[in-house]
């Protein structure tokens, strides 16, 4: 039980050491009692999927066997960010970065590195090995340009240990708020920092809090939106998994600021790791008296609960989310009244995104000026993105606002694999749009992305190369919104289905030029007439691909060709007779018996070339990889 600030400070001082131990820049003189090494293993969803939990168990077993269990601390953390290289293991104080570890490697690392003192070079992330020198992760291209605020503890602390969080100055902001600041001062700091909502809309957080605080005293609520509806993103989930106490602290601060004593976190039931860690963190905070009555010996009280979402994109929309917490089919309600006035159970409510909250304690501790010093004129601070798609370093990155798309993709993201060219990046998920190569140098912030016909969204950033068909991509997102439209209003319910029909027609090769005008007209109509943000933004992927890749639509319609070779009706597999060596490997792969031998022998070749019977080919693509060596099979 932590009764006052002095007790909190004492814990902080004890554990700060541990945390410093894991910061490479802290230098080698930091010691942690008898403990000589910290082994951090990623317990994020990505690495857990590739068995990091079993690796940890094996590691601990080997450590015991070696008899060094008193000198080594093994910690399961949240996501390190570089998920593409998972499972990841980092050893401190050196900061050596092991990538793609398998269970069998655990013993080797223990023997050679922990006992023998020699990092296992063959298992290290290759970027960190420069001749004889081994770099720490902070020196890699992936981490160097990042600025970690919301993610500062992910991959650093044990999310299930409240003391480690306190060691990073955790709950110090809450302590400061309840003992030294008035609610107005808190709100002013947040306002002054300029932070805008990270869930997509970009509404100034301080303003939202101010409205709710201005409502008459009485029951009010603090809600966290952890629904993370974007089907290709996992930022919020990673924060919940890697640093759940930051959210608890921030929501409690918000409660103090607006005069609420109850919080709700809406998380997807599909995020079991996140739910369990958050629940464990809430329990720990309660045990320590950081939630509940008389927080830090004041008469301020606050408590919170998790509500599980049952999986519906529209429930990420704030009013639908509130309806869903109330136990109904999660349909949006018209605004106004805004939740700040009439929200959960009809009471004044603030609702913010997970990442928004994760910034709050830092703003309180380091001040509005510090926060304002990062970012662009109208977008302050940093933004977390889930990098995915055709990019080398798939994972989570946090960058100062104003970083260019090119820097994110080429430098931090390590560029496009297989020597392919960048074609476009999609931000904002199904509500957003694409940014084409011609706008590669756009500085990422709320307003610039909107000016490009896209939006910040919650942070999904999907990179596409020349093999992505933009018409197919628009269709992919439309299929998603058709499924997810709640059906309450006609423009969205019916309009999106019509849009999808037209797109399908085009991708099947039955499109006509006038379809393009129809798409545009209908899209704009849906945008203006839908009730909630889902319908209002659903046509964005269509409009933005039309604006930037109209020629690709035209190729589908006029030439009946899919330039990227994705839309199955619009290309065939062919064999270049002169490249084909006649090895016949492809024919073995073909499930449809579509490949046969010709009697043509190319110059200098021994065997007759193969050919594909287009009428038999089912376009499964199985033959393609079998000819990697000669590259004779192509789509045309």
């Amino acid at each position, binding site marked *: 039980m932590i009764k006052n600030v002095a007790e909190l400070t004492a814990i902080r001082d004890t554990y700060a050491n541990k945390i410093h131990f894991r910061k490479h820049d802290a230098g080698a003189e930091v010691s942690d009692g008898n403990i000589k090494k910290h082994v951090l293993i990623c317990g*994020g*969803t*990505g690495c857990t*999927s*590739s068995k990091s939990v079993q690796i940890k168990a094996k590691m601990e077993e080997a450590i015991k066997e070696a008899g060094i269990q008193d000198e080594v601390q093994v910690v399961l953390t949240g996501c390190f960010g*570089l*998920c*593409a*290289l*998972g499972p990841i293991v980092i050893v401190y104080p050196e900061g050596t970065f092991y990538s793609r570890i398998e269970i069998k490697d655990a013993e080797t690392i223990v023997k050679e590195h922990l006992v023998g003192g020699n990092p296992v070079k063959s298992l290290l992330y290759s970027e960190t090995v420069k001749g004889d020198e081994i770099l720490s992760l902070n020196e890699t291209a992936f981490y160097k340009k990042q600025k970690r605020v919301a993610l500062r503890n992910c991959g650093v602390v044990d999310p299930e240990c409240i003391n480690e969080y306190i060691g990073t100055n955790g709950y110090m902001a809450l302590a400061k708020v309840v003992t030294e600041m008035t609610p107005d001062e808190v709100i002013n700091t947040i306002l002054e920092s300029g932070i805008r909502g990270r869930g997509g809309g970009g509404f100034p957080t301080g303003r939202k809090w101010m409205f709710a605080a201005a409502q008459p005293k009485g029951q009010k609520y603090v809600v966290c939106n952890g629904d993370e509806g*974007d*089907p*290709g*993103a*996992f930022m919020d*989930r*990673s924060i919940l998994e890697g640093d759940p106490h930051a959210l608890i602290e921030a929501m409690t601060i918000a409660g103090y600021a607006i005069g609420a004593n109850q919080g709700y976190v809406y998380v997807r*039931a*599909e*995020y079991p790791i996140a739910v369990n860690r958050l629940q464990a963190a809430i329990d720990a905070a309660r045990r320590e008296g950081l939630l509940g009555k008389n927080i830090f010996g004041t008469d301020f009280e606050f408590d919170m609960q998790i509500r599980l979402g*049952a*999986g*519906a994109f529209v429930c990420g929309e704030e009013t639908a989310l509130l309806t869903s917490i*109330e*136990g*109904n*089919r*999660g349909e949006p309600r018209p605004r106004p009244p805004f939740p700040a006035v009439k929200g959960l159970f009809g009471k004044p409510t603030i609702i913010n995104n997970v990442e928004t909250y994760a910034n709050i304690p830092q703003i309180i501790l380091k001040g509005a000026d510090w926060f304002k010093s990062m970012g662009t004129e109208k977008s302050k601070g940093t933004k977390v993105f*889930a990098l*995915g*798609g*055709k990019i080398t370093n*798939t*994972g989570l990155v946090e960058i100062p606002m104003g970083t260019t798309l090119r820097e994110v993709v080429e430098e931090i993201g390590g560029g496009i694999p297989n020597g392919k060219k960048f074609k476009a990046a*999609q931000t904002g*998920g199904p509500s957003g749009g694409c940014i084409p190569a011609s706008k590669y140098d756009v500085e990422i912030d709320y307003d610039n992305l909107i000016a490009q016909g896209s939006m910040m969204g919650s942070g*999904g950033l*999907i*990179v*596409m190369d020349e093999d*992505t068909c933009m018409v197919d*991509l628009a269709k*992919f*997102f439309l299929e998603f919104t058709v*499924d997810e439209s*709640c059906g309450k209003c006609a423009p969205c319910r019916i309009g999106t289905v019509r849009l999808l029909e037209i797109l399908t027609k085009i991708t099947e090769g039955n499109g006509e030029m006038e379809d393009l005008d129809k798409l545009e007209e209908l899209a704009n109509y849906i945008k203006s007439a839908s009730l909630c943000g889902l319908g209002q933004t659903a046509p964005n992927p269509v409009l933005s691909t039309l604006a930037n890749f109209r020629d690709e639509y035209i190729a589908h319609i006029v030439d009946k060709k899919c330039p990227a070779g994705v839309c199955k009706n619009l290309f065939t597999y062919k064999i270049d007779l002169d490249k084909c060596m006649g090895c016949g490997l492809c024919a073995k*792969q073909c*499930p449809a018996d579509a490949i046969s031998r010709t009697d043509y022998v190319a110059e200098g070749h021994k065997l007759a070339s193969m050919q594909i019977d287009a009428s038999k080919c*089912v376009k*499964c*693509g*199985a033959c393609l*990889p079998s000819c990697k060596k000669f590259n004779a099979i192509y789509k045309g």
Partner: protein
Amino acid sequence: MKKKMTTVAFNGTAEQLAKLDELIAKHKGEKGALMPILQGAQGIYGYLPIEVQKHIALSMDVPLSEVYGVATFYSQFILNPKGEYAVAVCLGTACYVKGAGLLMDKLESLLGIKNGEISDDRKFSLDATRCIGACGLAPVLTVNEEVYGRLTPDMIKGILDKYNK
């Protein structure tokens, strides 16, 4: 995700029905009781067959359309039974861009069932999911709890073979 009603015959037991009635009795009259009842019913049957939805509607005295409305609204509720091995392909954006659609095609052709269906012997079911948070391994699929990542269509057969023994 789009939901289709199952074609698999319903074979609930009297024991399951008793449990369901107990569950309904416990929640009847509560505000917003439908969600917990459906969640509980799915726990009992593994999915929500239309027969069960009808029973819930009748017992709670609400229109079937309302029950069906909630059951189809949330993706947590499934209207099709799962196979002994539930195969789910991630069709989140990151996976889709990296060719998850081709994995789905391959699975459909190898298993002889479509997305959302179950094989006649109930051994395999096939579904699409959205981002499971393992985009670093994209494209991914899961078989029950096991996650397979960095896949290409030619790896599918080997995976299924593991379960076909």
